[in-house]
């Protein structure tokens, strides 16, 4: 037999294999950047800013979730819930459990917005262009202010104008969390504190933002949101001033028809701010999911939220386009406001500013900008409804319902105006969302709302 001599080969193989491969243990992720790189340049920080809009547009929040909570909890019989999901059914029944995952999404997303805004705001020093820096700061504050405003409205007792408002709202978190060492276990701030933060943020945004800013928040987006906040707080002077500023200076105008304000791929002329939805974003539009018939991407309730005959009592003119802005499915009546899965979601329309100015002027007996009756008739004319000769508070508020139904105003308006929902008093605990169970489980400093 031939004598093989493999020993040298083996020894050399061995030598090779035992050489420390320590370098091989350094592997960098290929889909991710480190926090240092993500915040090191203006371009990157602006990309974080852009992502805040994505988080806000999430179907759990401004992509439908918040409006769904408001409309279903605020449902006094005008809507019928036909869907099979438990979480909205709990809203509709006003028997919300603290583990409701829709509530959890609203909370978690809002603080994701807040934290990312904090990250952007803490990274402003990388900017060299003052203008760019101002816009970035303004947008981040707009988004943060918006998030806290809705958190406060949903998780706290209603704001009472002229009183202390020391009721517990939500924790304010202004620290940019970029590593594990800065995790905090905050307590709830009072409603007064939260609203102060909201106004500070939105006022800064108003001062910093330009009049036009592509599809992003502008000076007048901030002004319009401020008008909404002041109205909620019963501060009619400021609500009037802001809405008047928007109507006069923003350059937006009511769409020619009511129909023109909805289901648009591009922002309409009356959008002061709208969430952008494209087929590429892989985001679900929960407005069409729950309000749309099956053929428009809605769920099997077809639609999950149908409109009952009771709703139609609010219209006073059969020619009013808004009273005709519906379609029938095999299971019921659906609103035509949410028919485009991939359409933009209007967040603040100019029509709301007319309503706020009219209400504030009326309450203050002023005619800043225009008379209440003219403002209301501007909306009625656009929808082919007969004009009023005079208006009172009741007609203004009814006009508000006609114009803004199914856009997420029900609960907030009912609570602000002290209107009972069915037999439930407007200040009932059941109309306030529970602090999500996951939060109270994790953070012992959070006190649960009464009734949960």
């Amino acid at each position, binding site marked *: 037999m031939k004598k093989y001599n493999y020993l040298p080969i*083996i020894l050399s193989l061995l030598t090779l294999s035992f050489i*420390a491969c320590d370098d091989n243990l350094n592997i960098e992720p290929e*889909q991710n950047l480190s926090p240092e790189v993500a915040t090191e340049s203006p371009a990157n920080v602006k*990309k974080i800013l852009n992502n805040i809009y*994505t988080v806000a547009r999430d179907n759990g929040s401004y992509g439908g979730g918040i409006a769904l909570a408001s409309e279903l909890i605020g449902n006094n019989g005008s809507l019928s819930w036909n869907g099979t999901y438990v979480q909205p*059914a709990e809203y509709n029944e006003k028997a919300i459990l603290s583990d409701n995952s829709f509530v959890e999404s609203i909370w978690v997303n809002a603080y994701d917005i807040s934290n990312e805004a904090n990250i952007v705001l803490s990274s402003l020093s990388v900017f060299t262009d003052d203008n760019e820096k101002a816009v970035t700061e303004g947008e981040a504050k707009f988004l943060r202010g918006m998030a806290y405003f809705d958190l406060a409205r949903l998780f706290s007792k209603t704001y009472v104008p002229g009183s202390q408002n020391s009721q517990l709202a939500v*924790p304010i978190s202004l620290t940019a969390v970029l590593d594990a060492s800065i995790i905090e276990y905050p307590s709830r701030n009072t409603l007064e504190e939260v609203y102060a933060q909201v106004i500070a943020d939105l006022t800064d945004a108003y001062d910093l933002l330009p009049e036009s800013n592509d599809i992003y928040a502008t000076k007048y987006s901030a002004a319009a949101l401020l008008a909404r906040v002041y109205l909620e707080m019963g501060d009619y002077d400021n609500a009037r001033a802001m809405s008047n500023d928007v109507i006069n200076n923003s350059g937006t105008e009511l769409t020619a028809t009511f129909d023109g304000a909805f289901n648009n791929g591009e922002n309409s002329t009356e959008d002061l701010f709208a969430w952008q939805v494209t087929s590429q*974003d892989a985001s679900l539009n929960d407005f069409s999911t729950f309000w749309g018939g099956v053929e428009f991407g809605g769920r099997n309730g077809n639609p999950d939220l149908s409109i009952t005959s009771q709703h139609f009592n609010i219209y006073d003119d059969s020619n009013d386009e808004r009273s005709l802005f519906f379609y029938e499915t095999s299971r019921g009546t659906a609103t035509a406001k949410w028919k485009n*899965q991939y359409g933009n979601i209007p967040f603040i329309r100019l029509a709301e500013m007319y309503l706020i100015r009219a209400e504030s002027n009326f309450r203050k007996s002023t005619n800043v900008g225009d008379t209440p009756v003219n403002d209301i008739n501007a909306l009625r004319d656009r929808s082919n409804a007969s004009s009023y000769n005079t208006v009172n508070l009741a007609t203004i508020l009814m006009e508000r319902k006609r114009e803004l139904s199914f856009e997420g105003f029900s609960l907030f308006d009912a609570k602000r105006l002290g209107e009972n929902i069915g037999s439930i008093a407007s200040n009932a605990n059941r109309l306030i969302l529970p602090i999500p169970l*996951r939060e109270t489980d994790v953070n012992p400093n959070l006190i649960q709302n009464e009734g949960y």
Partner: protein
Amino acid sequence: MGVNIVIDNTSKGTQTDFDGKYEIMASPQDVLVYSFVGYKVIKRTAGQETIINIEMVSDNTFEEVVVVGFGKQSKRKVTDNIASVSSSDINNIPIASVQGALTGKAAGVQITQINGKVEGGVKMRIRGVSSISSSQEPLYVIDGMPLINDDESVSEAPINPLISLNPNDIESIQILKDASSAAIYGARGTNGVVLITTKQGKSGKTKVSLNTSTGWSEATNKMKWLNAEQYVELFTEASTNSYGAEDTWLTEEGGYFDFMSNGKDWRTGEVDTDWQDLALVKGSVQEHNFSISGGTDKTLFFISGGYNDTQGIVRGNSLDRYSFRSNLDHKISDKFRVGMNTSLSKTKISRIGTDNSFSTPLQAIAQSPLTPAYLDGGIVPNNETSIYYNFLMQEYNGNWNVNIFRVLLNSYLEYQILPELGFKTEFGYDNNNQTEEYFAGSLTESASTNGYADANAIQSDKYSISNYFTYAQTFNEDYDIELVGGMSFEESSRKRQYVAGTGFPSDDLQTVASASEITSGTSSRTKYNFLSYFGRATFSILDKYLIKGSLRYDGSSRFGASNRYGIFPAASVGWIISEEDFIKDSETISLLKLRGSYGVTGNAGIGNFASLGLFGGTAYNQKSGLSPVQLGNPDLKWEKTNQVDVGLDFGILNNRISGEIDYYSKKTNDLLLNEPIPGTSGYTSITRNVGSLTNKGFEFVLNTNNVMSKNLTWKTSLNLSTLDNEVTDLPSGDIVAGRNIVREGETISSFYLVEYAGVDPANGDALFYKNTVKTDGSLDKTTTNNYNEAERIISGSPYPTFMAGLTNTMSFRNFDFSFTFQGEWGSSLYNEGGKFQSGNARYEDNQTADQLDRWQNPGDITMVPQARMYSTNGQQASTRYLEKSDFIRLRNLSFGYTFPREVTQKFSVDRLRLYFTGINLLTFTDYSGYDPESSYDNNGNSNIEKGITFYSSPPAKTLTIGLNIDL
């Protein structure tokens, strides 16, 4: 199986037949070598005789050998706890998954299939659960190579990563349970190690084996649901209770019932759809395997091919697997050996939706019996008037297929440098290539976008190199020493591509190529690796005193640079008492061995970049964004488990009765925990090293040879094990996930629920125990109908505290018979779908028949509250939907008949066996749901959310008949 007879130094050989006869052509000077496992080798020069009768002598020095990490060891001298399962235990069991065939065979090993889907994941838990957030799965090693064991399912329902292995190729499986055996796999040893050895040929006559079987299957259990008449009765009452009798919206002309019935007259009983029967169907199994094996004294080979076709019991779910294996081993010289094992397989799976999708068949049980399943004509499913999306549409107008290609390659070179010093280098390669394609047509849930299709492709591959020396020497006859030392390097990489599109011109065009719009797409790459050094020393003194020590040093890219390496030592001792003089001559006791071990193992089953802070790419309005996706934690380090094992091996009456008794205690520290953090931080969790938990238990194995006569043999094997799992330290406080909680002092994943107190006889309200803590520390056991007033309490565990397996094997003349019973006690299951299925008609979903026991009149005593449509009354999460899931199951049974050799020889067949096999034929349980082994597959990969069921299908009960043919 006969005695091997080979002419020395040639490849010529034969085997004796069943009567011990043989024939061989030999020259007078040839030396005949007779060998048989367990007997001494005998050499005889042929000479001039024509008949040579040989009596084989049993070899007392023969010792059973077990495979251990990086080597083999005599079972007698093993100081570890290793469970062995041989090919005869797992072959011919018509289960597509390797793990499924092991159920009930090893003490302390819990194997649970998630539910009845054919591709579904299987969970193996060796000695309990040792981690909260890190991997809980054992390390699988095939012929020395660690396998890829990542679920690559595109949906949340896992696909068993080992589904592409053919169980019939397996020679033996060793499960390394204690630290002393598993620590040689260091950082991945904590959950135990499963060593799989594939078959190899034996020198001598070439053996051809064929196995073919075919069978039928059905669900182990079906539940009772309301029929149309009962449905009408219950829901009419529920509506009356909510809205008054005068509101006839359900029953009036054109009402909701009319809508459901879609033109059929429910009033006359024209429609009564049994949705369960549409979802759970009759399945079938076909399996065909062949193998050719043999070899000479220099070369051994084994070639096999297999085909498995399983039609699941859930409509639309099936699996086809083609597999091929070639194992080759060659001795180049006395010093040099090479070998290469290769296997290829292709697995095709027809999938169905996850348990949490309307398109999954079993969610059809929610549909009303008033709704016709099909439109008139009986072909097109009725999706017009069903309460939920009609799943039949998915089969009619969509499909979802997975193709898995898997290549395994192990090769080795072995060089005997000196008689006592050997060197082995192994190279292994594992490639898992998976393509998943989904299409939903214009009639499905994707109607609004005119169809939807996606395609997902994964290429996972892994290579491993290990080099090690083995030194074995005996000094002065009494001192044996064996040393193993070496290193290994492993690199695993994974690539993924995904694309989705909508808008299809025709339902016949089902690939994304025809989509009018590409709605989503992604691709990604990732990688991780391990670099390890290991050593082991084994001493045996006077064949009685055994000492072993091992050390492993592991480094992984998964950990932060400051904690990249971990050291995992282990030591064990053994004392073979039966070798001592005072007992050596005992006729009763043939083996008595005391052993003890201690060792440290690790767990690195976390994300590839878990220690880093990460930002990932997103988009808004088609412009790029950056999103913070993970908080960094540079201090992240190895999770370590210290395990003590004390055991006694015994054999009585010449090992007719033998067994093992073990006690173990495993303590895991520095748990890698996805700790929930306040959402107010902008994140919901972070991976940290916090807390510890323990698993403790007894294991008892008893093997008996009850009868060993010429015509009748009967063996019994029993295994029992207990498990006591406790979270001992959790500084961050409770972790609650869904219905489960991780809490200090309790079993991991304990159920955490409000306690249901039944129904108020006065008004039919559901009642709950308040369970608020009173000032004296006790719980307030008064009841309330206000759910929000009731506190959650620990109310059970998803893990069994006691498990048992009993296998009997018998043969009588030409008949053979075996069966395995398996049982688990102590666990519970929570039905997350209970609120819909058994919710006293709160939702319009069809209800389980027991809901007819609802409260109706004051004074009624029942556990089912008053039916109130659309109004909550007892449907909240509570112990109402929690149930004990103890069971005993006839896991498998086989009965065979081997035809007499005289008959089969006429057709040149060595052996012909006809057999019948059954799986899950009997289940004894008080559990009222589908099956104790049907759990929610969306939670399949969750570590904490365990013991939850949600429209989960029961497993299959299978009957097959088959033939074994050996040529």
